[in-house]
Structure formats: C-alpha cells, structure tokens
C-alpha cells in the first residue's frame, strides 16, 4: 500500500503545515479540527451530514483500538463525538499527545474512506483538503 503511506505522509505534512511554527496546544487543536471541518465540507454534500458523523465516529473507534494510549481520549470524545467535543478533549492533552492523536485520527479517517470507496475516489474527493493552495482550477480545464 505504498500509495496509502504516501497519502499518510501528505496528511501528516498537511497537519504540520497548518499547525505552523507555534506548537501550543490551542494551535494544534485548531489545526486538527479545521482539517476535519474541511473534510466534512468536502464530503457532506455527497454523503450527507449523517454519513460524515458516522465516518468520524468509526475513525475515533478504530484509532483508539489501534493505539492504547488514545483509549482514554477516545472515551471522553465518545460523550460528544463531534468536532467541538473533540476539540475540548484535545485542549486537555499535551502537545505531543494531541498531535499524535490528530495524525492517527486523520489517517484512519482517510484509510476508512479508502476501504469504502477506493483510493482514487477518496483522493479525488479530499484532495482540496490537503492541497488548498492547488485548489484553483487546473490549467488544462481552462481551455474552452
């Protein structure tokens, strides 16, 4: 699955890019939730609000089962499994834990979607999330 690990690297890089040089917990929590928000924005029109919520919940569950150190965080997010609930829990963590959680959660979300609709369509739907600077119309589509 070299392509997927390529995507994982991209997700981690994108998160790092959004966090920027300041490594305070508020910035990290904001970066993670803003990426989730962008994913939501890309997917909700297609799969609906409920579809997105279900994907997030499943991603949280999978992340916690794969990494024991995330189990505690997962239990607390369970109470309000949406972005605001997640952000509140993230703010209570150390910077390193929050960043790790974010990386795991986002890659898990991506992988989950890949298992459902395949890598190429997943990449297609979410590419603007990772490459906001490239989201302008590609040159070949400017031709009349």
């Amino acid at each position, binding site marked *: 699955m070299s392509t997927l690990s390529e995507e994982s690297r991209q997700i981690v890089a994108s998160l790092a890019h959004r966090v920027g040089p300041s490594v305070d917990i508020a910035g990290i929590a904001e970066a993670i939730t803003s990426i989730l928000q962008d994913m939501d924005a890309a997917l*909700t029109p*297609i799969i609906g609000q409920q579809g997105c919520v279900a994907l997030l919940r499943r991603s949280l569950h999978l992340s916690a089962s794969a990494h024991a150190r995330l189990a505690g965080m997962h239990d607390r997010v369970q109470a309000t499994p949406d972005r605001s609930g997640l952000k509140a829990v993230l703010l209570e963590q150390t910077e390193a834990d929050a960043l790790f959680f974010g990386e795991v959660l986002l890659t898990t979300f991506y992988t989950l979607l890949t298992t*459902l609709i395949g890598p*190429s*369509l997943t990449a297609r739907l979410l590419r603007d999330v990772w490459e906001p600077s490239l989201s302008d119309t590609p040159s070949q589509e400017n031709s009349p």
Partner: protein
Amino acid sequence: MSTKVTINRLATGVPGLDEVLGGGLPEFSFNLIAGPPGCGKTTLAHQMMFALATPERPALFFTVLGEPPLKMLRYQQQFDFFDSDAINQSIRYINLADDTLAGDLDEVLRRIVSEVEAHAPSLVFVDSFRSVVLASQTQHYPNNNLPQFVQQLGMLMTTWQATTFLIGEYFTETDTNPIFTVADGLIWLRQSVERNSMVRKMEIMKMRGQPTLPGLHTFRIASSGIRVFAPAPLNPDETPRSLPMQRLKMGVPRLDEMLGGGLPRGYSLLVAGPSGSGKSILAATFLAEGARNGEAGVIAVFEQRPNHSQNATLADLIRSGQVSLVDSRAPDLSIDEIVQLLLSEISRLNATRVVIDSLSGFELALAPTFRADFRESLSRMVTALTRAGVSVLMTSELEDRYTDLRFSPYGTAFLTDAIIVQRYIEVRSRLLRIMAVVKVRASAHCDELRQYHINDDGLQIGEMLADQEGLLGGRPTTQRTGDHND
C-alpha cells in the same frame, strides 16, 4: 426552411439503448427510470451520466433516501464506465437525505432549485424519487402536494434546459401516479423470472416525440455496464437476390450437383438428421470450403460439449481466425442477444457463411421464458441473418421416425430456403446412411436418395440404392427383378 424546433438526441452510451429509444434520448426531456429493487436503475443512470457528462455539460446527481451514497459510490465504481476523475468536475453528487427526512417537499424543491442554479447542470438525476414520494406522506406537512411538486420540478428542469431522470422503485405500471403523466419518457426495467432462470428486460413505455421500439428488450449487466439487445434492424433496402443466382460450393463432392449447382447465395439451409449422421461434419466442410475461397465464416455452437474441439478442420479454421466461434455459455440467452452476437461477428469478419449447430442446442440455451416462442424466435433469427446477406446452414437433430417424413421437430422447415435430410436405413444387417435434397427454393435440384458414408475426408456421397425401395421406412426391401421390365 423548416421552422419546427429541432430536438437534439443524446447518445446514451449504453449499447443498444439508443436504438430501443428510437434514436437516442431527447435533450431536455424529463424521464423516469422505474422498476423493482435490483433491476439496474441506478446502474443505468450512472452509465448514461458518465457517458453524457462533460465539463461543458455537467451533471448533478441528487441522492435522496435509500441506498447510502457511500455504498452507491463503492459499487458503481466497479463498472468500467465509472471515472473518478469526473467526480466534482463534470459530475457532482448532492445529498438531500436531511431535507427529505424532514418531509417538507417545498424545502426539497428549494434545495434542488438552488443547486441547479448554482451549478447550471445539463443533466439532473434524482435517486430515488420514490423516497421523495414516501417522505411526502407525512402528517406534519399536510400541505405537501406531490402532483404539484412533480409538475414544478418538471417545468423547472425543462426551463433550465436540463435533461432529467427521476429514478424510482415502482412495482406496478398501472398506478395512477402523477409522475407518469408529467414524464416525457418512461423507462421500465424488469426482472422476469421463470422456473430457475432470470432475464432482465427493458421497456420504453413512453418517449414523447419519437418512434421507440415497442416491446420488452432483454439486457445484461456486466462489468462494462448495461448492454441492451435491441432487435436487429430490418434493413428496408435489402439487396434483391441477383440473377442469375450465385451459388456457393458446399465442399462435399457431388452435393453441389444434388443442390442444382450449389447453395444459392443468401439462402438458409436446414440439415436435418439423426444423431451421428454427419450434420456437424457437413457444416464444418461448408465453412472450410468458404475459407478455401477466401470467405470468412461464423459458427454458433450451442452444444454442452462443443464438438468443434473434435473436428480438426474446424478447430484449425477457428485458430487461424477465418471462422469466428460464437460459443455463448451465458445462461438464459435471448434471441436478440444471439442475433447481436452473430451480426457483430459477421460484420467484424465480413463473413458470408454462418452455421448454427444445432437448433436443438439453441433451444436449450434460450431462457425458458423464450422457449414458448421458439418458432417466432427462429424465424426472426433466420430473417435477420439472411437480410444481412449471409448464407446460413442450420443443423437440426431429428429423431428417426420411419412412420413419417419430418425435417425438424419445430415445424420450422418452411422457414428455410433449402433442406437436406439425412437418415439411417437397414440393409443386410448394416446401418447405412442416405441423404436427399428435399427443397431448394426457386431452383431445380436432384430428387435422388443417395447413399453416403463418412471417412477422414468428410462425407462421401455415393449412388442411389436403385435396387432398394421403401428406404424412408427405414427397412427397405430389395426390388424383385420381376418388377423391372428390362
């Protein structure tokens, strides 16, 4: 100059569908794709959408309640026509589940309008429209007016110059449903089950302004998508048989002479005989003779164990590509499917000789639902093939009945232009074979019952058994010399 409006017809990208629709899909039409669950409605919609949508002519696909969009994307991308690159470019999916769940049709319509205005699509799909209808039947919105909703949607889409498809589960076409009235086109998909077989059928119940092909048309869903088997077009400018008659050599010594000089080109020939009488060998020789003269051939084999593998000549011809083998093991064939297969091979090879081996196997290969109409099916096949200009040789298994003279068990002998019959007879404790040319339409032919035998070179036709009589009864007797006045 005509001042009438010209209706553009869109090529749907579904093989055979444009023919059935009567020349493609009218632009800006408002259509309903209906049928029971699992009949291929969503697949048909997707296949047309991927074929028709372009960046200049984008498509909106509204998903309502029913199949979750994730599932739909998961399954639809298994088809070859699905192109991920088109998503969010020429094709946009929009989920209306939340709006529909709320049950307010006005709100659903508002959402559709705002998305249509935002994206200016040329193609609009609503899947499944049935759930919109069901959601409208709530107590919370007593003012929901479905006929009005449909009417407004239809008007809106037309004025926005969008070709629209509503996809819905409907089980009876006799429902008085407002959609049926408003829609310009009604494409009804069915799964016809008889005994253990299932055949998919499509009917264009309505398509305003154009001559659709009436009746039920079979289709299949494969990894390439849907393929509709439209009936072979009846070519009105059928070339009249040229005079003098051109004749094809059969490849069997003396048989041409029995046929009056060979098989007239464009004729259909029935070779009827009992098991082991050499029908398939005769058929293979017919193709080999064609190949020797540079004529390509097509053979359709319907036997459980195709004996082409046992006939070295035929196997060589198939290997070398001079003869194309149509060996459809697909279950539940329809006549139109077989005719399509044959015609496409005929045109691919520019073939002039076609063999159907055998009619008995062909009957078994047909889905049970078509067997009752076997004679009609056969008649359509023979007509379609001979109109294509090819000469057709069909074999027919004939149980030897010595009490009557029959040429096929189907009462179909009249369909063919020429008939050769083969029989076994008993002479001096030996089983001998005889054959005769029974009929060659519009041509003189030999009336002799000739003995023949089969060796490594094929059929070898001998002489009449002049000293025997009662051959057709199977147990001939030697004529007494006293009967001859010589």
